[in-house]
């Protein structure tokens, strides 16, 4: 989580700077906890400063954060069988980077307890770093621009996750479709294009992919075969 937390720091500073310019900084800062999402928080602050109708402010914040519903649904099985306070706490931590890292961790297996511990560690670290960055940004305001170079860490982390998904069956199709959808909708109101990309990725990724094989399985089989050639074991049936 450390590289992601560093990468998100400039974004947090940016949100903090927007809070410092808002008419009610205390209320704006409280949104760090209640909204807990940079894009939605920025849209919220922007609409509030323009004195937009309350319904519009709430609707746009909800729309931008709708993707969290999908993340939560995907992560729900991990928390099945636990007490509801744990599930509630886990739900409060669902954001893009947490989903990203927990999803990566899921491929490495490990016990369910360890995966939950990893989840909580990610969530708490990010929440702490985010709160710190937003508060610092609100306190000093103009420092956000100086920290901009750090922001390159975020797209690099995203690249790491997206490229890893290309090995999954339907991954190429899903990522290509989502990228095309994102390019086509990037001028749409904040958050709406993202939802379209998610929907397109799910639909295209699940569409029949012909007789193509899961790259992960193909590579694994090749590796096993190479390993067997290098270190031939006893024939089957011989102990």
């Amino acid at each position: 989580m450390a590289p992601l937390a560093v990468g998100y720091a400039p974004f947090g500073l940016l949100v903090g700077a927007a809070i410092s310019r808002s008419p009610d900084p205390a209320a704006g800062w409280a949104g760090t906890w209640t909204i807990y999402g940079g894009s939605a928080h920025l849209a919220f602050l922007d609409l509030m400063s323009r004195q937009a109708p309350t319904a519009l402010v709430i609707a746009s914040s909800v729309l931008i954060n709708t993707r969290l519903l999908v993340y939560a649904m995907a992560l729900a099985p991990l928390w099945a069988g636990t007490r509801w306070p744990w599930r509630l706490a886990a739900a409060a931590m669902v954001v893009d980077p947490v989903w990203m890292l927990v999803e990566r961790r899921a491929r490495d297996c490990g016990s369910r307890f360890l995966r939950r511990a990893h989840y909580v560690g990610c969530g708490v670290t990010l929440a702490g770093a985010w709160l710190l960055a937003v508060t610092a940004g609100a306190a000093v305001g103009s420092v956000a621009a100086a920290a901009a170079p750090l922001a390159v860490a975020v797209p690099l982390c995203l690249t790491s996750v997206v490229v890893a998904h290309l090995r999954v069956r339907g991954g190429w199709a899903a990522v290509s479709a989502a990228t095309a959808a994102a390019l086509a909708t990037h001028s749409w109101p904040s958050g709406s294009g993202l939802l379209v990309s998610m929907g397109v990725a799910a639909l295209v990724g699940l569409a029949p992919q012909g007789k193509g094989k899961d790259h992960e399985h193909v590579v694994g089989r090749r590796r096993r075969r190479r390993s067997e050639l290098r270190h031939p074991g006893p024939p089957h049936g011989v102990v």
Partner: protein
Amino acid sequence: MVSSDLIRIGPRAQQGLRHAGVGAMAALLVSAVVPGSSGWARPDVGVLLALAVGALLAWRRNSMIVVVAAGAAVYLVVTTARLAI
């Protein structure tokens, strides 16, 4: 998530949710790179080169730390070179 004991999600739906999540990541990546959107990283040559190197390393199964460190190094080198010119 709170009602995860009541809702059962099948493997196909799980796979769809995974695709959807990565679709969101791809969209965020596009918004961070394409000019005119509310990206966090400036869409310059340094960012594009850093992402290209990061993608190559990620494809070769390097860890996220390695991807970020190498990409950030490329970005720094390119940015410094551009400032020097």
